[in-house]
């Protein structure tokens, strides 16, 4: 598998690509012992600043570190330009889709997507129907997962329009690179990612309710310090210069949201919420939720509060909806998609299902609502027995699965076991949309599968991260 993959440093043929020339030279002249020493330093840095995440179901793993790989990934200005245009187009289409689905549902009337795929989907929230979404931007923050298979072959693997995470790693990785390899950085002209917080703040402010005061009050809502992404929540609040709140810090009075402060109640205009739809408001969603704020959804409905992201945006994350995304882009933008999809079989369609069952050994099969690499089958890596078990699951509930070919994901040089070796990577850029359009800081989170040959990059499955450099022209 490794031999057929495109390597971002050495291409298909082993000749170093120009963007990586300096990096390659640096890797050659830097002794491995020094790299190892830097790796240890990096780990100590991350531990000290407290970047940790929790792994579901793992015992004694309350706080674990996502491994940081020293070797940066490099993208040229040209590559980024195409990604940028494609991402803006895609996220604008996703926003139009969400607004439409909760409004007139033109796309369903046009017969582009089967109605039941939307209405039977738990990620579609009937409570949102007919609600006026501020500035028609439900998806303020999107994380679009990109994979690469060749010099010019970029595909979207997954859309994350619910509550994409990982941006703190993008920023911290850059910070650590600056500390550890100032010499290497000086040999490149790298576009900065540090403006992310300013851009996010501007975007959130642009979406404030009309009746907010001049300077809207923004807060980040976290489920609490036991959440796996708590570090990121507090990191973002810090960078934005806004309060990090939990449900217990907030209350609703007369359809307005307030936070409890040392000086009494203070109104909140925009909530960047990192709490799932289900838990936002026990009066409207799950009644047993302790994480949310009773009455919060009434504030949103009445227009006194902007939620980023809006409720019900998760419908765009659904992998069955994903398979329609090229049509969705055409429908709303009138243009051909700049970034393609990975070919996808919808197992709900009988012909597709039988194809998938016959070719299970070559395919990756995923749950349509799943995320984080849970509940998926990587055909080539699975044993015969695992495939048989999975086939039974698939036949029992075909609607719940899609399948994709096993892509030869690109590889990047990675520091493992005291040496440099190619490992598979993907990329998650963070796309921000406000009242005045869409913006993306040049870069993103590169995730790397640290095990040789592995295609699973999720941090919950042992993946690591890399700093991602977008070069100036």
């Amino acid at each position: 598998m490794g031999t057929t993959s495109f390597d971002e440093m050495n291409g298909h043929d082993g000749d170093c690509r120009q963007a990586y020339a300096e990096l390659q030279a640096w890797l050659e002249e830097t002794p491995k012992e020094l790299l190892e020493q830097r790796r240890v330093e990096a780990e100590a840095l991350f531990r000290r600043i407290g970047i940790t995440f929790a792994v579901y179901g793992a015992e004694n793993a309350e706080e674990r570190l996502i491994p940081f790989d020293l070797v940066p990934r490099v993208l040229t200005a040209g590559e980024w330009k195409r990604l940028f245009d494609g991402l803006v187009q895609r996220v604008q289409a996703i926003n139009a889709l969400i607004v439409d689905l909760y409004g007139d549902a033109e796309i369903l009337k046009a017969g582009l997507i089967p109605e039941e795929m939307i209405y039977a989907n738990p990620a579609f929230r009937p409570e949102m129907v007919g609600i006026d979404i501020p500035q028609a931007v439900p998806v303020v923050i999107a994380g679009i997962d990109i994979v690469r298979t060749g010099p010019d072959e970029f595909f979207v693997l997954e859309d994350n329009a619910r509550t994409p995470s990982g941006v703190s790693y993008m920023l911290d990785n850059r910070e650590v690179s600056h500390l550890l390899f100032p010499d290497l950085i000086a040999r490149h002209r790298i576009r900065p990612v540090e403006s992310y917080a300013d851009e996010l703040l501007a975007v959130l402010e642009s979406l404030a309710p009309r009746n907010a005061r001049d300077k809207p009050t923004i807060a980040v809502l976290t489920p609490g310090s036991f959440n796996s992404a708590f570090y990121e929540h507090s990191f973002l609040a810090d960078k934005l210069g806004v309060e990090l709140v939990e449900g217990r810090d907030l209350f609703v009075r007369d359809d307005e949201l307030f936070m409890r402060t040392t000086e009494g109640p203070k109104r909140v205009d925009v909530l960047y919420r990192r709490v799932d739809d289900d838990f936002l408001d026990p009066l409207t969603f799950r009644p047993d939720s302790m994480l949310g704020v009773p009455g919060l959804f009434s504030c949103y409905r009445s227009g006194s509060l902007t939620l980023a992201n809006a409720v019900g945006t998760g419908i765009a994350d659904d992998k069955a909806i994903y398979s329609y995304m090229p049509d969705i882009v055409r429908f709303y933008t009138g243009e051909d998609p700049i970034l393609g999809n990975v070919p996808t079989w919808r197992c709900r369609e009988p012909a597709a299902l039988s194809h998938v069952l016959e070719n299970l050994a070559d395919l990756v099969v995923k749950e349509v609502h799943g995320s984080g690499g849970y509940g998926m089958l990587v055909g080539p890596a699975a044993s015969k027995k695992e495939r048989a078990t999975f086939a039974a699951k698939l036949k029992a509930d075909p609607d719940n699965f899609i399948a994709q070919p096993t892509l030869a994901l690109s590889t990047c040089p990675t520091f493992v076991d005291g040496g440099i070796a190619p490992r598979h990577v993907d990329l998650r850029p963070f796309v921000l949309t406000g009242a005045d359009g869409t913006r993306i800081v040049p870069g993103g989170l590169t995730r790397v599968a640290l095990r040789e040959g592995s295609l699973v990059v999720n941090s919950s499955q042992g993946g690591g991260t890399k700093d991602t450099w977008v070069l100036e022209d």
Partner: protein
Amino acid sequence: MMLASTANDIFWMSRYVERAESLARILGAARRMSAIPQVLGDETNEWESALSAAGQRQAFGEADAPASEKSVFDWLAFNDKNPSSITSCLRQARFNARAVRPALTTETWEAINTAWLELKRFSGSSGRARDYNQFLQWVLDVSLKVNGSAFRNQLRNDRYWFSRIGVYIERADNTARILDVKYHVLLPEHSSVGGSLDYYQWSAILRSVSALTAYHWVYRQSFKPWLIADLLVLKEEMPRSLASCYQNIATYLDELALAYGRQGPAQRAARNTHARLRNARTEDLFQHGLHEFLEEFIAENNKLGMTIAEQYNLV
């Protein structure tokens, strides 16, 4: 303006770090005392005094072991099941800090987080080769780093003030407790001459609040029990004295009142206590009864904590 829950976490984070430091000082002084020659006829068990000073005698009693250096260290320093042990205090401080990480400076957060990471070195059952002195010194260093980083980098706003108020309320409580445990050796009629044992007792008290040198600088004479009480209760220039704590508490509460444009029962209570400490003379302490005075003070100090919580919606 800040989130009430943030203020609460900052307040308690500071208290827990301060409490850990006090415990370390109490343990250090007890170690020293227990090393004095038995021929001096010490009938009191220093390890029990240490437990009393930490307010832990009863809780320890339930652990059902005689008070010895090992058992008391295990309980007051390392026991994870004792919510008031040093390790528990540091763990709790880190828990509070983590919840309000953005409200802290990077240095303060790193000081607490690093302490929490290093704690693993000392806690658990692997600490057979523990060096008690090294551990106590480490705790003092942690507290110094946490306070020092705040002093050096923290913006002087309500976040800072709540953290300082936490420190000084906790410190006042600790000083008052240490004094109360040993008040009998400070009574003038106890021994105006002072045998060797008393000498050790007095120096242990001063040591447990880091005031041994300060005593000589302030009074320039040999230990007099009433002067020790005077130093630790009434001398504002002595940083761990009750008067100094209340000078600070009153100042920081005033800062809050000024910033918020509103004052209330917390400010009034702190000013009253501060004024009383300022106006009192050493004789008054003993006339009223030192023990009674300290008991009353501890109760009032506790009450102030609750008044602050109520006034600033911390609960």
